[in-house]
């Protein structure tokens, strides 16, 4: 399938820094948000007349408010360490997708209006006026950054392009030039509680259907409780877990873990979303509105703990910002991390023997693991440094017999973005998504050829949707991406289970019995 109207990058045997091709992606920009999506978030419906003045003022406000932003803008020495670190540059060859060049789109305007030299001798210091052309460039290229922060790992000053890209998007929203995909979704989540726009009756129907499926398959009544007051744990998970594949198999995995460990838990119809796209558009206010729904749900349901499902940027927001956005959470049980990741929960139960895993449930797969950017570089898990790398891998290895890592430069803190993060997971950016996935596809191809890897696991809803969409462009099958808790689901031994963990398992048992 996937008749591309563009050239899909060729996967080489090893990473090659491509030759620059000026303006190679100048044509790629997402749909601009219409008035209805803009005004819901408190932004002007369309580009305002005095956009230039307002944008410059907003820039000053942001550099004042976020010290980090002004440090990033002031401290770049153009050493070039970041240039070949961006997956979008590697996949598109467009020089403006080099992190330093992307930053400079913003920096040159900052210099012009907020530095002395830029005000007096702009040409000598690379300062430029904010013009309509510059604004268009911003819109194009700040929507070719997935805010994955890989470049910042290699920057000797730690300059974080993600933060600059968030600031640029916030300025564009403020003057009325927002992105349709993100802003439509944020508006939906603020009203309906989730990005999909899934109303409560549909959620109930979906969850009941899954309970039936699990019982049909295992003979065990595993519940997926919704709005249960007085439950111990509130699970906040991306709404894609209710809708898409392989996400939904991960949700089944969480439910089986909670069931087997006898944890009293619930989900919330009011806060039925872990994702928080407010971060992608750099809007503290919108991010806070979504975070406060989680707090409200926790209070209304009287839970003792909050656990997050498999969602990359949600975990960044939860781990790094939830307390300042919506805290204090002094009403929760302080014996548990606030919040906790589902991987931490499952990992703990594996360690202490509460749940038993039969690895042969995944014998039809040879696995590798894709570190999702926001988990890898913007958060942590467990109580040891690097826990965000070891805990998911430990869970996978406890659930299967065959596991191989991809090449070192492409995993852990050096992981490549899936190509669809940061609010870019939209069909109008499909060319960018396919090209940006190239470095990850190259690493995956290597382990499929050398180690016989058949499936890649991930703990991010965006990564999973992105890979299932773009895999066919690189001759992989869409179902080669799996949820980490899907593996747990296949392997977990449920008390009273009538069947084996999977169909393959059944066949083997039958053969042995015969």
């Amino acid at each position: 399938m996937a008749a591309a109207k563009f050239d899909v990058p060729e996967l080489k045997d090893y990473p090659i820094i491509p030759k620059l091709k000026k303006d190679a992606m100048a044509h790629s920009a997402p749909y601009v948000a219409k008035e209805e999506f803009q005004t819901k978030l408190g932004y002007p419906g369309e580009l305002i007349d005095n956009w230039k003045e307002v944008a410059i003022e907003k820039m000053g406000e942001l550099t004042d408010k976020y010290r980090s932003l002004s440090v990033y803008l002031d401290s770049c020495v153009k050493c070039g360490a970041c240039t070949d670190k961006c997956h979008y540059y590697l996949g598109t060859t467009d020089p403006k997708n080099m992190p330093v060049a992307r930053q400079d789109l913003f920096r040159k305007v900052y210099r012009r209006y907020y530095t002395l030299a830029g005000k007096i001798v702009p040409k000598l210091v690379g300062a430029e006026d904010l013009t309509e052309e510059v604004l268009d460039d911003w819109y194009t290229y700040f929507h070719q950054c997935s805010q994955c922060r890989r470049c910042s790992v290699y920057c000797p000053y730690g300059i974080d392009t993600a933060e600059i890209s968030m600031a640029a998007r916030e300025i564009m929203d403020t003057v009325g030039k927002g992105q349709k995909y993100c802003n439509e979704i944020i508006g939906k989540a603020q009203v309906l509680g989730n990005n999909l726009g899934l109303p409560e009756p549909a959620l109930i129907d979906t969850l009941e259907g899954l309970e039936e499926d699990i019982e049909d398959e295992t003979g065990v009544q595993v519940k997926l409780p919704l709005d249960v007051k007085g439950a111990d744990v509130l699970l906040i998970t991306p709404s894609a877990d209710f809708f898409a594949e392989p996400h939904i198999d991960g949700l089944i995995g969480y439910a089986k873990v909670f069931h087997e460990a006898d944890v009293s838990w619930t989900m919330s119809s009011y806060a039925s979303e872990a994702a928080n796209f407010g971060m992608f558009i750099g809007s503290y206010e919108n991010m806070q509105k979504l975070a406060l729904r989680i707090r409200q749900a926790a209070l209304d349901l009287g839970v003792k703990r909050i656990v997050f499902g498999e969602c990359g940027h949600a975990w960044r927001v939860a781990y790094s910002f939830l307390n300042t956005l919506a805290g204090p959470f002094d009403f929760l049980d302080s014996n548990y991390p606030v919040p906790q990741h589902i991987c931490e929960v499952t990992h703990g139960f594996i360690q202490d023997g509460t749940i038993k895993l039969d690895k042969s449930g995944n014998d039809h797969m040879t696995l590798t693991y894709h570190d999702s950017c926001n988990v890898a570089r913007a958060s942590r898990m467990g109580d040891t440094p690097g826990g965000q790398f070891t805990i998911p891998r430990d869970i996978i290895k406890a659930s299967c017999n065959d596991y191989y890592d991809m090449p070192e430069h492409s995993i852990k803190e050096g992981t490549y973005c899936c190509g669809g993060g940061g609010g870019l997971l939209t069909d109008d950016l499909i060319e960018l998504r396919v090209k940006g996935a190239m470095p990850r596809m190259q690493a995956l191809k290597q382990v499929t050829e050398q180690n016989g890897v058949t499936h890649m696991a991930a703990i991010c809803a965006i990564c999973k949707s992105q890979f299932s969409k773009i895999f066919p462009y690189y001759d992989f099958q869409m179902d080669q991406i799996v949820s980490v808790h899907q593996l747990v689901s296949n392997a977990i031994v449920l008390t009273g289970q009538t069947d084996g963990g999977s169909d393959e398992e059944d066949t083997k048992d039958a053969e042995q019995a015969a």
Partner: protein
Amino acid sequence: MAIEVDGQSYETDEEGYLADLNQWRPELATAMADADGAPLTEDHWEVVNFLREYYEEYQIAPAVRVLTKAIGKKLGKEKGNSKYLYELFPYGPAKQACKYAGLPKPTGCV
């Protein structure tokens, strides 16, 4: 954007999804599929009709799993899987079939 059927114009969004759900007519689905170069068969219609029924009840398109289960019940177990649905709708059953059914595009991380 708009789509023309029998001399009448119907407003759509940038991606070709019908702006007003209530304006939907079967001829619109046929026209959209023809424009995509893959005319609708009876099998396609089973999916499109199920989506519309589900939407009427729940105001949202069904999860892929709900859809595969329903199609499996109607058309036989061998068709109750996402592979079959992707054969019918290569751009994704949720998105492409929703478009033909006149439903809004599912949004989010899907």
